[in-house]
């Protein structure tokens, strides 16, 4: 099968999954339990993305002080916690990473 057909089908599947429940839940009422459960999608998905990016160093979990991304991530978490400011959090995390990498 050629690459164009793969891309087209792959694109349709991707779109279909993105569209699926936006479409269905426009037609039917969302069950109450599910509505409640859906509130937990953002924190669950985002931390599932964040944790490995901070804790995995190469192919293994690295809890040592040599893991600069973990330390910079903790700085960012603290800044986000105290100041609740997106830009400040990102800048603090980036600067922390730069400095830690220089050490």
């Amino acid at each position, binding site marked *: 099968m050629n*690459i*164009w*057909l*793969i*891309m*087209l089908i*792959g*694109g349709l*599947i*991707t*779109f279909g*999954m*993105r*569209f*699926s*429940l*936006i*479409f*269905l*839940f*426009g037609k039917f009422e*969302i069950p109450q339990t599910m*509505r*409640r*459960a*859906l*509130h*937990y*999608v*953002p*924190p*669950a*998905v*985002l*931390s*599932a*993305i*964040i*944790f*490995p*990016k*901070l804790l*995995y160093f190469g192919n293994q*979990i690295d809890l040592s002080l040599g893991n600069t*991304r973990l330390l*910079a*991530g903790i700085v*960012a*978490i603290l800044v*986000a916690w105290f100041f*609740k*400011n*997106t*830009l400040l*959090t*990102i800048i603090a*995390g*980036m600067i922390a*990473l730069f400095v830690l*990498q220089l050490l």
Partner: protein
Amino acid sequence: MSEAKKAFLDGVRAEFPLLVGVFPFGMIYGALALNAGLSALASQMMSSIMLAGSAQFVTVQLVSDAAPALVIILTIAVVNLRHMLYSASLAPHLKSISLKWKVLLSYLLTDEAYAPSILKYEEKGVTPVSHWFLLGAGFSLWFTWQVSTALGIFLGAKIPEEWPLDFALPLTFIAMVMPALKNRPMVAAAVSAGLVALLAHGLPFQLGLILAALTGIVVGTVLEGKK
């Protein structure tokens, strides 16, 4: 300035820090796709037809390994499964917009467009113009993805590897998720999902991410029910 335009620009602004990480990622994708033997046109078009970073990387990898088409397509489906969660999660907030809008916003529904939009909706609720926010976030991501892919195709991935621009993504997600952790079930959902993501990191096709997200959702919902 109209309310709609303001919401659109708010979406663009919220997306901005994520674009810092997306740009080099797009360049690397463009360079890799070309290296794997795809034509410049096909490499570029994949970025507009699929608009899905990790699925595009996997596709390019499998194409260069000469994997069977059916395997590639199934892999794309599994890698993108998490988008059904995003679709479900945004659905209550997009109930009242027209079908055309639903189609457009679904096409633009990437990880990076989802994150700022859902947190905005959960915090501020739905307004008659709030779908413009998702359009702003989604469109700026789309535009950056197309341009960075093109640059990767024509220039190669020219960003020095020691620049940790990819770190902007977890940092932005940290900044977004922290204010949402307002009560114990939310914190438990985040922590349990994070821990499962670590344990299941070895699973292929982003299955670890889906498993982790589902765990967090169940933990949060059960704890909320106990209150």
